[in-house]
C-alpha cells in the first residue's frame, strides 16, 4: 500500500460521499445507499488490509478497531456512518502525514543538502564520481556554485563558501590554502582543490544529520510519561468499553467509545513538538541532542562560561597600531617581516595581522636574534629593528618618551599587551595585542537574562586582573580566576548542590570535566570539533554566543508547546468520551473531532519551525581584553 494509492482511494471515497450527499438532497434513496456502501468498501479495504497484517504479526492496531466499528455499522445498516468513518480515517491519516512532513521539514532540508557526486583528479584525469566512491586522500575540485562533497583542507585556490549546512550562518566565509572546508557547504564564488581527509559517513555533515536523527528519536521525560500512560491507557479503554456495553447494551456506543478513545493525538502530541524544536535548532546551527536535553535546557537558571575561547575569541589579535612616524601599514610590514623569525605567539599575531591585510613580505630578516622573554632584534632593508617590551628597549638603550609611555600604560589598563617597535634606535610605534571579547557577547548575555537566566558566572585559569576586566565589561554576576580544571568542576558542583540548574559553556576540550558535571554542557565548536560533538549536550556549530540565547529560548518555547499539545490532546479525548457516554457524540462526528485534534496538535508544533526570537542587530562597541 503506497502513499500515492492511498491518496487516490481517499479522493475516490470522498467524491462518492459528496455524490451521495447530492443524491440525498435529490431524494434518490436507493442510489444513495449503494454509493455509500461502495464508498465504505473502497475506503475500508486498505484499513482492513492493514488491520489484518498487524494481526498476523500479533500487533493490535487502531485499524482493527475501525474495521470492527465499520463492520458493525454496516451490520446495523448505518451506511452514512460507515462511509464517513472510513473516509475520515483515511483523510485524517493523509493530512497527518502531510503535516508531519512539515514538522520534519528541517531535517529533510538538511538531508537534501547532502552532496551526491564529486569531481576528482586521479592519475591526472578529471572525473565525476559518486560521493560513495570518493576515497581518502583524493584531490577534489569544486567550482563556484558547486557543493563540497568531502571534509578536507584546501590544497590550491581561494573561495567564499556558504556554510549554512554546518553552521546555520548565511554569510559566506572566505577560505584559502590550508583552511578546512566541510562537506555540504557550497562554493559561493571561486575555485578550490581539496584533499579529502573525511568521506561519506565520516564527514562532519553526515554526523550532524545522524546526531539530529538520533536526537529526534530520543525520548523526553514527557514522552516517556506519555508512553507509559498509553500502555496503561489502551487496556483501560478496552475494559471500560466492555463495561459500557454491559451497562448500555448498546453495541454502537461501545464501538464508538473504542474508536474515539484511540490515543492518536496523545501519542503524537509531545514528539511533534520535540522534532520541530530540534529541527529548528539544527537549521540555525544548534545541535540539541534530544528531547530530555531540551527539557533540561529550558529549566536552566545559571549559566557558567569559560573565558578564553568562549566569551573571548580565544586567539590574540592586534587591536591597535600606533605609529609615530609614517603610515601604520608600513610599520606593520617592517615589523611583521622581522617577526617572521619569532616563535613567540605575540610575534606570530603581528605576522598574522600583516597577512590579514594582504601585505607582501619582501625583505628577509638579517642578523636576526631572539631575546628570550623580551622580544627580537633584526635588520630589515638596512634598518635595525628592535621589537619587544620595556626591558628590551632599556637593554638596547632606547629611551621611551613620556607621551609614548603614557599611551602604552593607557592601552595596558584597557587590557592590552603593549609592544614597542623601534627603528634605528628610535621608538617608531606601539602595537596593542589582546584577546578580544566576542563582539556579540554582551548582547547574547542580555538576551539570556531576558529569557530567564538568573545568574551568569565566568570561570578562567587566567589572572584575576584580566578576569575582572571581562566581568566588568560584560556585567557578570561572579568571576572566578586562576582556576585549575578541578576547581571549575568543584564550583559547578557547589552551584548544583545549592539547587541551581547549571549550564556550562566551554570550548570543548579543556573544559570537558566541567561540561560533564553541569546539568547541561554546551560546547562552542567551530564546525563541531569531534570531542565537543560527542560529549556536549548542546553544540553551537558557529562560534557565536547568540546561538546560545536562541537555543535557550527555543528550548523554553518547545517545552511550552509540548505542554499545550499534551493538555489539548488529553482534554479532547476526555470531552469526546464524555460526549459518547452522554449520547451526544456519534461515530462519524467523533472521528472528525478526533482527527481534527490530531491535526491541531501537529499544526501547533509547526509554529516552532519558524520560531526565531527577535534578533536586534545592534552590535555593541567592542571591548578589549588581554590574556597575557
Amino acid at each position, binding site marked *: *500500500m*503506497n*502513499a500515492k494509492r492511498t491518496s487516490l482511494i481517499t479522493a475516490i471515497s470522498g467524491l462518492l460521499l459528496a455524490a451521495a450527499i447530492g443524491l440525498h438532497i435529490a431524494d434518490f434513496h436507493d442510489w444513495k445507499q449503494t454509493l455509500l456502501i461502495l464508498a465504505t468498501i473502497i475506503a475500508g479495504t486498505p484499513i482492513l*488490509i*492493514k488491520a489484518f*497484517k*498487524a494481526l498476523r*504479526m500479533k*500487533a493490535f*492496531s*487502531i485499524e482493527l478497531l475501525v474495521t470492527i466499528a465499520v463492520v458493525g455499522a454496516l451490520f446495523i445498516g448505518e451506511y452514512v456512518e460507515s462511509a464517513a468513518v472510513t473516509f475520515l480515517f483515511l483523510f485524517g*491519516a493523509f493530512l*497527518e*502525514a502531510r503535516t*508531519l*512532513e512539515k514538522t*520534519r521539514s528541517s*531535517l529533510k532540508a538538511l538531508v537534501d543538502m547532502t552532496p551526491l557526486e564529486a569531481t576528482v583528479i586521479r592519475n591526472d584525469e578529471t572525473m565525476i564520481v559518486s560521493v560513495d566512491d570518493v576515497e581518502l586522500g583524493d584531490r577534489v575540485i569544486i567550482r563556484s556554485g558547486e557543493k563540497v562533497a568531502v571534509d578536507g583542507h584546501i590544497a590550491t585556490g581561494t573561495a567564499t563558501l556558504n556554510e549554512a549546512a554546518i553552521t546555520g550562518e548565511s554569510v559566506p566565509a572566505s577560505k584559502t590554502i590550508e583552511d578546512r572546508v566541510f562537506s555540504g557547504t557550497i562554493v559561493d564564488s571561486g575555485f578550490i582543490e581539496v584533499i579529502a581527509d573525511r568521506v561519506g*559517513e565520516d564527514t562532519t555533515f553526515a554526523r550532524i544529520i545522524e546526531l539530529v*536523527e538520533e536526537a*529526534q*528519536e530520543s525520548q523526553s521525560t514527557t514522552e516517556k510519561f506519555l508512553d507509559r500512560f498509553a500502555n496503561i491507557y489502551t487496556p483501560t479503554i478496552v475494559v471500560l468499553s466492555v463495561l459500557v456495553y454491559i451497562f448500555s447494551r448498546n453495541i454502537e456506543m461501545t464501538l464508538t467509545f473504542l474508536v474515539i478513545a484511540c490515543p*492518536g493525538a496523545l*501519542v*503524537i502530541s509531545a*514528539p511533534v513538538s520535540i*522534532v520541530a524544536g530540534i529541527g529548528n535548532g539544527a537549521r540555525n546551527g544548534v545541535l540539541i541532542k534530544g528531547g530530555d536535553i531540551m527539557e533540561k535546557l529550558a529549566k536552566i537558571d545559571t549559566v557558567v562560561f569559560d573565558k578564553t575561547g568562549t566569551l573571548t575569541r580565544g586567539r590574540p589579535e592586534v587591536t591597535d597600531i600606533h605609529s609615530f612616524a609614517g603610515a601604520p601599514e608600513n610599520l606593520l610590514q617592517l615589523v611583521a617581516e622581522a617577526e617572521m623569525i619569532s616563535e613567540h605567539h605575540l610575534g606570530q599575531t603581528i605576522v598574522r595581522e600583516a597577512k590579514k591585510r594582504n601585505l607582501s613580505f619582501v625583505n628577509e630578516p638579517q642578523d636576526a636574534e631572539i631575546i628570550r622573554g623580551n622580544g627580537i632584534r633584526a635588520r630589515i632593508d638596512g634598518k635595525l629593528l628592535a621589537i619587544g617590551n620595556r626591558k628590551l628597549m632599556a637593554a638596547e638603550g632606547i629611551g621611551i618618551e613620556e607621551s609614548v609611555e603614557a599611551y602604552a600604560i593607557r592601552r595596558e589598563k584597557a587590557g592590552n599587551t603593549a609592544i614597542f617597535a623601534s627603528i634605528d634606535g628610535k621608538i617608531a610605534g606601539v602595537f596593542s595585542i589582546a584577546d578580544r571579547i566576542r563582539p556579540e557577547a554582551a548582547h547574547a548575555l542580555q538576551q539570556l537574562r531576558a529569557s530567564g537566566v538568573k545568574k551568569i558566572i565566568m570561570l578562567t585559569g587566567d589572572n584575576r586582573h584580566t578576569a575582572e576586566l571581562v566581568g566588568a565589561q560584560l556585567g557578570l554576576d561572579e568571576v572566578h580566576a586562576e582556576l585549575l580544571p578541578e576547581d571549575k568542576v568543584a564550583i559547578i558542583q557547589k552551584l548544583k548542590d545549592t539547587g541551581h540548574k547549571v549550564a556550562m559553556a566551554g570550548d570543548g576540550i579543556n573544559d570537558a570535566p566541567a561540561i560533564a558535571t553541569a546539568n547541561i554542557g554546551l560546547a562552542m565548536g567551530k564546525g563541531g570539533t569531534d570531542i565537543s560533538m560527542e560529549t556536549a549536550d548542546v553544540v553551537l556549530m558557529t562560534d557565536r554566543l547568540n546561538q546560545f540565547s536562541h537555543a535557550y529560548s527555543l528550548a523554553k518555547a518547545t517545552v511550552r508547546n509540548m505542554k499545550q499539545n499534551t493538555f489539548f490532546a488529553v482534554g479532547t479525548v476526555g470531552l469526546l468520551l464524555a460526549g459518547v457516554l452522554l449520547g451526544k457524540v456519534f461515530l462519524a462526528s467523533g472521528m472528525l473531532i478526533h482527527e481534527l485534534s490530531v491535526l491541531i496538535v501537529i499544526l501547533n508544533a509547526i509554529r516552532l519551525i519558524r520560531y526565531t526570537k527577535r534578533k536586534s542587530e545592534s552590535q555593541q562597541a567592542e571591548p578589549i581584553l588581554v590574556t597575557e
Partner: protein
Amino acid sequence: MKKVVFGLEPLSCPSCIKKIEGALNKQNGVGDAKVLFHSGKVRAQFDDSIIQADELNKIIVNLGYPVLSQKVS
C-alpha cells in the same frame, strides 16, 4: 554483524514503530532493530551467515510498508 538501513515512506502512526521493531527483532540473527520514526528509517544489525538484508526488506514490505532504499554496511 552487518548494519542495514532501510528508507521507508514517511511514517505517521507511532504504532508502526512497535510493529516493525517487534517483527524484525523476532528474527534469528537480527539484533537491535530500531525504527527512526521521524526520519522514516529502519536500522538493524544482522548476522549475514544466518539472515540476509533482502529477507528483512521483505518482512517490512509484508507488514505494509514499502521500502524505498536499502543500504548495507
